[in-house]
């Protein structure tokens, strides 16, 4: 299967996982952002432009799926920025090392933090929560949870590196 087609197929799969199975992973109201993790993976494996486009497309799809519960354009905006930032860590010669090493966790943590900062800043407007409360209650825990999930692809790629 050509690489773009496989990526698109996997993107749809991740989208389905996020919208259906992620609710089983909820801890204290915090959900891991599998779509963002997938966008970061694309950024490290494919580069900045594919990651930016993937972030925008998947974010827009999430916005549309969320319906009246979401804010149309917000996930698209935050994931576009997430994909674009993650794209700065793309190195064609070190894809396996980055994906199979602690770098993936660091990149995920950094990008997820910035993503959550932007996302929750808009999403929680009018809720009366301050910046610190907002990040302490939602932004940082969600980033930590997403980073923790990033351990799975990291381990998978680490096995590849070792092999």
């Amino acid at each position: 299967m050509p690489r773009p087609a496989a990526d698109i197929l996997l993107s749809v799969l991740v989208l389905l996982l996020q919208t259906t199975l992620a609710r089983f992973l909820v801890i204290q109201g915090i959900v891991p952002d599998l779509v963002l993790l997938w966008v970061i993976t694309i950024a490290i494996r494919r580069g900045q432009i594919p990651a930016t486009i993937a972030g925008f497309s998947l974010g827009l799809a999430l916005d549309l799926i969320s319906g009246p519960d979401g804010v149309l354009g917000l996930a698209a905006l935050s994931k576009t920025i997430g994909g674009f930032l993650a794209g700065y860590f793309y190195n064609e010669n070190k894809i396996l090392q980055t994906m199979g090493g602690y770098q993936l966790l660091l990149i995920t943590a950094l990008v997820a933090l910035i993503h959550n900062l932007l996302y929750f800043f808009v999403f929680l407007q009018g809720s009366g929560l301050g910046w610190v409360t907002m990040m302490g209650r939602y932004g940082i825990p969600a980033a930590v949870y997403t980073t923790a999930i990033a351990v799975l692809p990291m381990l998978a790629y680490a096995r590849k590196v070792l092999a």
Partner: protein
Amino acid sequence: MVKRLYDIIFLFKEYVVVSFCLLISILLLALNDSPQIRVLRSYAVVGVGLLQNVVSVIPNYFSLRQEISALRAANLALADEVSRLREGKLENLRLHQMLALKQRGEHRYIAANVVGKNLQLLRNTITLDAGELEGVRVNMPIVSESGLVGKVVSTSGHYAVGQILLNKDLRVSAKVQRSRVDGIIRWNGGTTLQLQEVARTMDVQVGDLVVTSEYSAYYPEGTRIGIVSRAEPIPGSLFQGVEVSPSVDFTHLEEAFVLVHLPDSTRIALEQRSQEPYAASGR
């Protein structure tokens, strides 16, 4: 040109792509009407307002010039209007005072504007725009709302000339209203009048009101003349020097009334006759 543009786009393709994606995302957000976006929109309005406030501090030379020109024109129009209103207010005040004067007196008054004035000579006069056709006659007193102005000395059809108190030829029988001390008002130049023939033992104080006396054949009794501004005995004399500040401000006199009050000719004739024997004997 197109190739060059294409090259530039290609060079910055990552930024072009991200800008495009961000633009669409922001457009979608802007079209949103969710509560979160409404809050953000209110922040944006406040932010833009603050920014405009800051930017408005920076002066725009051309708009300032236009504004200054417009303000100058407005200022000129307003100054003109203020001047006219002030004039109207003063006129209104004068007319009110005149009306009160007219209501107080028992005589008939002929209103006139002061159309000519001479205040620099020893024989100062004013010209009124009312003459014989309006009923003005020689020797009629001239008054204003402030008090006695003088008397008519010549007339024509529509004009009359009057001697004012600041005329060395004019004499007026007067008295101090408080102490009923009599004297003769004269002017010898300067800014004040003199109340003459007042014995040094008479009670005259600074601030006393001086009015026309009932002894005067030409002026009605009790018409205000002025206020005593100085009263001191004259050294080596039986009289005292009494200076009176005239009530009427002749410099700003614009309107006056001629009092229809002619002297009693029989009284004058009798008084003149009784003086003749003394005059003939040289006394």
